[in-house]
């Protein structure tokens, strides 16, 4: 039996390779994701190990507000310089250095734009001298208050050199400095993982990066001989007391790496999600291939049964084939995944400004994932065909059985059932009835819906394929192709369903994002009455900011009626972590956002007062006159009194504090500015004057309302594109499925093709016939996908109605493009099988057994 299996495998190399390819792509995605995150993870480990190599013990003040990795950058907390002396006095300390290091030093490059790092921190600090890690490459250390040194990577990115006068944005607006030195790191590195560093003299660093004089963010201590890092840590911790966090260099580097890895694992999960889609599509493809193989081998399998093979042996033989295909595909998929993972890691490393990559590693998870997924998927997909094979009676060997047209009742009932389960899960998940497992319920619902619809497709395929194909009815090869595609509804259905999954997901996500975009734009159009908006595009964890002085200057421009600057940060409000805003001009805010008061006075905001939205008031049980303790990123906790409550709007909600509170925000500068003009004044006339004011705030620009709304909504486009690219893989796999199905059909119908050629069908007509078959199948799949996707998308949009997505936008244009694309896909997929069909030797085909 084993030998028979191997022989039959070898005899069907090509079609097994095609279906194996689907597994290869899925496995590649899975193992690639693991390899990528593992490689980057270890690179970060070694990066931080280097960065903290010279730190035996580090002392930092406990943060006022602890933030998770995805909530924003942890703010460095300043502490008095005296602490350095305290540490220095501890027994066992050889040396203690006060260090200023904080994110948010943004250098303005020679092109007048801020040099961004796209993720890694932009550190500002005090120059504490050269070390084994840091070496000046050029120039000297900073001595005067207007002198800085910067790292080589930053100098290159900003195209600046020693002697240049450059602007730097910090906690304060632009200040100009002379670059007196450029430094690099051990190992000839220009940057550590793409981080930019600007080093000032200590007093300037304290003022600009920490906001106070005579404070530090860290004390770095080295141990005297014979004192271990841990001993030193404990001794220092005892000396500095409760308000500090004392860690060894090793702990520090592990913690820093762990923070980044949290982000990486999130990324990993996204990649695995797409792998799951690819594998779902692959499953359809494998199922189809094995079904066709079993159908074609009916006589052969029956013969085996006739000579004494048991049903179990037949199942075993089919499953064995599946295992072989799965194994081989997993090996190739793993290899491809390692390649892709390494390539992506390399690209990522480059993007992050030269992150030195630790060697590419293949973690156990990648290998286990690859083989587990590859084998399980393949065997599962082959199981149904195997069971069917076992039911072939021995008598079939003697009969000339054309594949009988089995009734679709069972499949249809099953499909309806599974679809119903999917719809129920979706209803529960989207309706918010599933509690903690909402996401899992929704995903399950989507999966069941796909499988259910796939099972229903054979039934749907008949009328739809007939209707689609009627386009070609005037043309004989077209008509033949259309009839062929309706010939085996199950096969057509599974092939089309594979394409459906990818297209449905793309369509669904497009519906959701387009609806969100349109809803947000619509709301903004309706509710923002500011004619001009100052804002910038965010390229890293920090939002872009501008000089608050611009707000007052803008107000002085003739024709400007109201100006409001908006600040924002995370804060603890009544012990709860929440996003708070601060407004320089609440009355302007109220007018420009069309806010209405439900209680108190929302047009004014004095020191110690706060405005909250009606939703926030309700959930926190607050009313006008309530006092709430608020802990901001800096400073001490302070009580605020609620003086006004406004009706929540989808665009504006939460807590608003007076502008003075923003001084204690981690970013104490306005993020957005709104300008309302006197009636009759044209925005275009005022815009250049505001633009001129922003000359020293290169992170932001001023735009009129429509352009601003467009800009904001446009941020979703990038996300949409990325998702589309990743889902394109699922579509590629589906195309393989179409090629596979067609190739098998051509093989199966060799005789028929020979007959057609014998009675006068030209080669080109033969190719036309196969192409029409492919186009009908793929357009059918795309049609299903567009319909299912639009349905799923609409369901999600409906569920998000309360979140402010009130407009359902069906992207007709996009959907049309998908259908057109499907037609092209069909033509492409048909190419090889069509050529093969056209080349069929007429005589050989007629004699074909």
């Amino acid at each position, binding site marked *: 039996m084993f030998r028979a299996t191997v022989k039959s495998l070898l005899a069907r190399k090509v079609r097994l390779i095609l279906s194996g390819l689907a597994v290869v792509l899925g496995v590649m995605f899975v193992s690639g994701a693991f390899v990528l995150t593992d490689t980057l993870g270890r690179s970060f480990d070694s990066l931080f190990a280097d960065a903290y190599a010279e730190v035996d013990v580090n002392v930092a003040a406990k943060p006022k507000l602890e933030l998770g990795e995805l909530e924003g950058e942890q703010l460095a907390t300043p502490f008095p310089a005296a602490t350095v002396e305290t540490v220095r006095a501890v027994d066992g300390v050889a040396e203690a250095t006060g260090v200023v290091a904080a994110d948010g030093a943004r250098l303005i490059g020679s092109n007048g734009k801020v040099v961004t790092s796209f993720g890694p921190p932009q550190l500002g600090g005090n120059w504490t001298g050269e070390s084994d890690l840091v070496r000046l490459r050029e120039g000297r250390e900073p001595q005067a208050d207007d002198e800085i040194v910067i790292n080589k990577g930053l100098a290159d990115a900003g195209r600046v050199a020693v002697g240049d006068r450059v602007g730097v944005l910090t906690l304060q607006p632009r200040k100009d400095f002379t670059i007196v030195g450029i430094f690099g790191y051990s190992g000839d590195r220009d940057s550590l993982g793409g981080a930019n560093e600007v080093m000032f003299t200590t007093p300037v660093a304290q003022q600009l990066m920490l906001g106070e004089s005579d404070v530090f963010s860290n004390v770095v201590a080295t141990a005297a001989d014979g004192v271990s890092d841990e001993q030193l840590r404990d001794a220092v911790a005892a000396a500095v007391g409760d308000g500090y966090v004392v860690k060894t260099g090793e702990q520090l580097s592990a913690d820093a790496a762990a923070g980044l890895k949290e982000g990486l694992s999130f990324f990993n999960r996204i990649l695995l999600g797409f792998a799951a889609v690819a594998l779902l599509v692959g499953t359809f493809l494998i199922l189809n291939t094995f079904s066709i193989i079993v159908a074609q081998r009916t006589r052969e399998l029956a013969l085996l049964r006739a000579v004494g093979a048991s049903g179990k042996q037949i199942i075993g033989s089919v499953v064995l084939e599946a295992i072989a295909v799965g194994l081989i595909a997993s090996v190739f998929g793993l290899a491809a995944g390692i390649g892709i993972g390494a390539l992506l890691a390399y690209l990522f490393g480059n993007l992050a400004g030269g992150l030195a990559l630790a060697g590419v590693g293949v973690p156990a998870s990648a290998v286990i994932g690859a083989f587990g997924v590859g084998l399980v998927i393949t065997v599962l997909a082959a199981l149904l065909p195997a069971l069917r094979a076992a039911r072939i009676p021995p008598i079939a060997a003697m009969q000339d059985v*054309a594949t009988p047209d089995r009734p679709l009742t069972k499949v249809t009932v099953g499909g309806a059932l599974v679809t119903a389960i999917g719809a129920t899960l979706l209803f529960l998940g989207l309706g918010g009835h599933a509690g903690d497992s909402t996401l899992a319920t929704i995903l399950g619902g989507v999966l069941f819906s796909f499988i259910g619809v796939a099972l229903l497709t054979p039934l749907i395929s008949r009328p739809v394929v007939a209707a689609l194909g009627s386009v070609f009815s005037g043309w004989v090869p077209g008509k*033949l192709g259309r009839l062929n595609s*309706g*010939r085996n509804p199950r096969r057509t259905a599974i092939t089309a369903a594979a394409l459906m999954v990818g297209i449905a997901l793309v369509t669904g996500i497009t519906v959701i994002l387009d609806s969100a975009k349109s809803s947000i734009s619509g709301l903004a159009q309706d509710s923002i009455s500011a004619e001009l908006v100052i804002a910038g595009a965010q390229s890293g964890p920090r939002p872009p900011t501008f000089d608050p002085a611009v707000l007052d200057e803008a107000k002085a421009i003739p024709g400007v009626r109201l100006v409001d600057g908006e600040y924002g940060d995370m804060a603890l409000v009544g012990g709860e972590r929440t996003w708070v805003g601060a407004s320089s001009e609440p009355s302007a805010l109220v007018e420009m956002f069309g806010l209405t008061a439900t209680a108190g006075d929302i047009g004014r905001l004095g020191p110690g007062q706060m405005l909250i939205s009606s939703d926030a008031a309700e959930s926190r049980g607050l009313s006008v006159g309530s006092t709430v303790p608020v802990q901001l990123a800096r400073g001490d906790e302070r009580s605020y009194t609620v003086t006004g409550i406004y009706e929540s709007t989808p665009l504006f909600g939460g807590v608003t504090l007076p502008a003075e509170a923003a001084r204690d925000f981690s970013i104490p500068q306005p993020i957005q500015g709104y300008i309302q003009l006197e009636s009759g004044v044209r925005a275009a006339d005022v815009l250049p004057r505001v633009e001129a004011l922003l000359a020293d705030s290169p992170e932001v620009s001023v735009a009129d309302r429509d352009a601003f709304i467009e800009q904001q909504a446009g941020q979703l486009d990038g996300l949409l594109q990325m998702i589309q690219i990743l889902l394109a893989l699922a579509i590629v796999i589906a195309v393989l499925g179409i090629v596979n199905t067609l190739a098998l059909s051509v093989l199966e119908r060799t005789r028929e093709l020979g*007959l057609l050629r014998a009675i*006068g069908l*030209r080669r080109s007509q033969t190719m036309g016939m196969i192409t029409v078959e492919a186009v009908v199948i793929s357009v059918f799949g795309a049609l299903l996908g567009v319909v299912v996707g639009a349905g799923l998308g609409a369901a999600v949009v409906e569920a998000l109605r309360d979140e402010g997505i009130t407009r359902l936008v069906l992207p007709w244009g996009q959907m049309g493009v998908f259908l057109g694309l499907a037609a092209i896909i069909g033509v492409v997929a048909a190419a090889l099988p069509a050529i093969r069909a056209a080349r069929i030797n007429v*005589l050989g085909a*007629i004699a074909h057994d």
Partner: protein
Amino acid sequence: MTATTGQSASAAARASDVWKVYGSGEAQVIALRGVSAEFERGRFTAIMGPSGSGKSTLMHCLAGLDSVTRGTVEIGETTVTGLGDAGLTKLRRDKVGFIFQQFNLLPTLTAKENILLPLSIAGRKPDQAWFDVVIDTVGLRDRLGHRPAQLSGGQQQRVACARALVARPEVIFADEPTGNLDSRSGAEVLNFLRNSVRQHGQTIVMVTHDPTAAAYADRVVFLADGQIVSELIEPTADTVLDTMKKLDTPAEVAG
């Protein structure tokens, strides 16, 4: 030996010194050794011979399904030898009809659609009167809307005959058309073929190994070992059988 009987200027198909060699060296097989034959218009010719005699090869070469190693084949005014795929396709459309032993019909099309398929492929309009004549001759009028799976073997073969006939080709090649049929259905099909020759002047060349089937023909050409060895005009099953028996004796072949 060459079949000379029926030499006529109006041959529907003609083979002149046709050689067909498969393979080379040790594995070389000579299927046809200089066969020359003419198949007159309006006659029903059977090609007979033991298995391996080359009768199917001869028919394939005549029909342009297979190329010849040497010699020429003509159908009507057209020289088949040397035609490319496009030329052969055109030939098959316009001048040749086929009836195979099995797999004659497309399962997706109805009987009527199958019959009209060569015309629709060629983009020609069927002659309604002729179509009616053909349908009535084969007796399929009440079966036209059926698909092949709903027809008996004999009916399927009659549909195939109608398909070959409806385009009025120069010549119809039939390859064991009754090979898969019971004797009653076979007789129906053969009667129909003979009638189409007698009543409508169709030219038919049929390969068969069945003496009874060959007896329906006007003329039987016998092949052995790649050569034409004998010929019968107005055969009966008995005379065919006798000739076949003689062919089985090697001494007779040598002549």
